[in-house]
């Protein structure tokens, strides 16, 4: 099986700023790749280079077996971060225009396809409306249709969820999964870690133009063995500070009513659990699975002088709204 995308030693600078710095990446066919990293990490620049919208200063790119995306544009669907529609154009004609630009033959077959797609996302009544009459979420659906209309082999989605409400977010996610099941290779970039966590089977993490992490989601979780436990006392008034005296327990902090217990290096988490369970009456005790955010913070701390708290703050600041919707999705 050949790789859908091969990036080798690609560097791109804008004036003083190095946006992408010697990036290497291979995306296998049929994979669902998450491209994560904070704002300004170089995700969009990398994607634009993959799409041959901008060209790298050095390094080599291969997309769907071709030297550049120019030769295989009709086989790629691309939802850019900076996306828009022709405000004065009607939804139907816009989609038909995009379809023809993607190499589809105009005519009844294309019209039927457009109609079917609009029906699926619940916009069949809007086909004759001007794009400017649609809400932002509706426009986003239209844009999504425009990049999957030609059934691309490779789908590149740059921040596909930004600005969507939870209902539409779920709808979009289902549509992505459907494309994935159809066999399309999907790359999607986001700065919202849990979105990547929910969708992707492979994660690439970029910060300051460099690849920090490139592995399958499971492997990443395995690598970052949990060092924290979540403990909830049966009696909510119970003071859990006594846990400090238990062997292997490090710092104790509280999170949403539960107590987070750090495990000292060298101690086996299961031993610590057994010791806690035997000394305190607990309602809940579990290993806290590392979220991508934790992993990211962990990785980012290693490569910079910023503290974990600062990086967390930065991440939340950038994606505050999306994080709060976690519970809904």
């Amino acid at each position, binding site marked *: 099986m050949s790789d859908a995308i091969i990036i080798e030693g690609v560097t791109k600078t804008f004036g003083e700023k190095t946006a992408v710095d010697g990036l290497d990446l291979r995306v296998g066919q049929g994979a669902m790749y998450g491209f994560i990293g904070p704002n300004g990490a170089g995700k969009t620049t990398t994607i634009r280079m993959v799409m041959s919208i901008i060209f790298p200063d050095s390094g080599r790119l291969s997309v769907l077996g071709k030297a550049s995306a120019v030769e295989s*544009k009709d086989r790629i669907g691309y939802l*850019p971060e*900076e996306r828009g529609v*022709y405000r*004065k154009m009607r939804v139907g004609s816009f989609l038909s225009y995009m379809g023809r630009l993607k190499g589809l033959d105009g005519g009844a077959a294309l019209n039927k396809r457009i109609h079917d797609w609009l029906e699926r996302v619940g916009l069949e009544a809007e086909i004759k409306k001007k794009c400017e009459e649609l809400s932002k979420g509706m426009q986003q659906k239209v844009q999504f249709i425009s990049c999957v209309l030609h059934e691309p082999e490779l789908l590149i989605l740059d921040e596909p969820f930004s600005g969507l409400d939870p209902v539409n977010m779920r709808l979009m996610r289902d549509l992505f999964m459907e494309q994935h099941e159809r066999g399309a290779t999907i790359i999607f970039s986001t700065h919202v870690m849990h979105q990547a966590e929910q969708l992707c089977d492979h994660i690439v993490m970029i910060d300051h133009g460099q690849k920090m992490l490139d592995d399958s989601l499971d492997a990443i979780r395995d690598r970052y063995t949990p060092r924290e436990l979540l403990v909830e006392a049966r009696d909510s008034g119970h003071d859990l500070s006594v846990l400090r005296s238990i062997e292997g327990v490090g710092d104790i902090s509280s999170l949403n009513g539960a107590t987070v217990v750090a495990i000292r290096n060298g101690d086996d988490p299961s031993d610590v659990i057994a010791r806690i369970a035997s000394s305190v009456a607990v309602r809940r005790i579990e290993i806290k699975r590392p979220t991508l955010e934790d992993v990211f913070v962990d990785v980012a701390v290693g490569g910079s002088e910023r503290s974990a708290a600062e990086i967390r703050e930065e991440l939340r600041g950038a994606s505050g709204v999306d994080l709060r919707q976690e519970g809904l999705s």
Partner: protein
Amino acid sequence: MKIFDVARREYIATAGTKGFMFGVLVFPALMTVLIILLPRLIDDKPPKYVGSIVLVDRTGWEGEGGVTIGSMLKQAYRPETLAAEHAAQSEGTEKAMESQFGEAGKAAASKITEQMLGDVPEIDVVIAAPDADIESLKDEMKTGTTKDGSRLALVVIDREAVFGTTEEPEANQTPEPGADENQEQEQDPGQVQEQEQEQDEQVKFGSYEAFIKPKLDDRFQGPLRQKVVDAIVEARVRAAGQDREAITALTSVLPVKPVEVTPEGERDSLSGEQNIWMAMGFMMLLWISVMNGGQFLMMTVIEEKSSRVMEVLLSAVSPRQLMTGKILGQMCVALTILAIYVTVGLVALNQFNYLYLIDVADLGLLVVYFFIAFLLMGTLMAAIGSAVTEIMEAQSLLTPVMMVLIIPLILFAPLTRSPNSVFSTVVSFIPPISPFAMVIRLAASEPIPLWQIPATIALGILSVYVAIWATAKIFRIGVLMYGKPPNFRTLIKWVRMA
């Protein structure tokens, strides 16, 4: 293929909007309607004047056979005389037009004079007593209309209009017996005083006064003046014992038309007026279509950038394809505008029988120069559009382009005056101005040296090539550049960079 999809959308999105319809189509449509309707409207001839003119002749002159100024004026206003004058006038115009424009000119002239002159008026000349009360005669004019036979005018001929006065009474001596009485009256010092000028040794003649009803146009006033003056002159000549016809023969020389001598032979001189109008028309056609098309091009690029649809498009087509398609599409829009205006122009010229002024070869060259001008200016506008995000930001970059576009307007006069001067030739070889200068010179009177046409076209193609090459580079960088609008220096840097 994708280029044509882009061009097609571009054309529909621009030429299919209401704004385009109004902006581009309504004006020529109005013009067409006016041009077609105007002659029909003029067919509604001006009103026929019916009424009387009152003459107060204070000279008291009476020639042989009882001829007076009044009788001459009566003669001049007889219906037969008026009808003959009417016919002669339109015939004269027709002849003049025929000699200049051939059969077509004659037909146009007869139509136009027919409409201009209107019906032959019916005018009665009433002779009032020499001492009639002017004020009461004036009052009579205050009632009635110009068509119901009421008083139209009052003409008062001065006492000295025929004989005049001099220092020496002898000079006023005439052989006419009736004149002696007047002469005596005139010499009454109290009455003559104001007209006499001591130092003047020449005969000083009096004039006449005319009072007319309001709303009488030149069709009435012109002949009235002419006829009264004629009658007075006739009276003077007769009073002096001269022969009017002999004097007319002595003082008139038939007008001639200069003949142009050219290497190709001799020909009648055109007045040059039509040529200037043609040159103006050709230049404006080019100017309006290029300006409109170029502006549309800039606007759609800016729209694609500001609505952020640009990157979506670039995922399907390359910047070069997009740019080519857009330029092609807008060129068709500009061609549509050009075609509409040329059609309206031709219809108008046909309507007025001026169609022979158009040379088909010139029209062909107009289209060729249009392509050069549009591709040159249009691509520049596309480059500007790609570099900015908002229309407001485009203003500063647009100013130099507009200044270049205004140059042909300023140069219009010198170019038409001497189309083949060194200056005109040099200007024709400055790329952005070249196509405009050439169409002006094409329509101007002197033929352009033949070599200059292929030479300027070749130069045009070369400059278009350079413009497209530079624009492609600016476009590629500009379309995804948001934020601070670049200045010209930055644009040049982009051209060098890519």
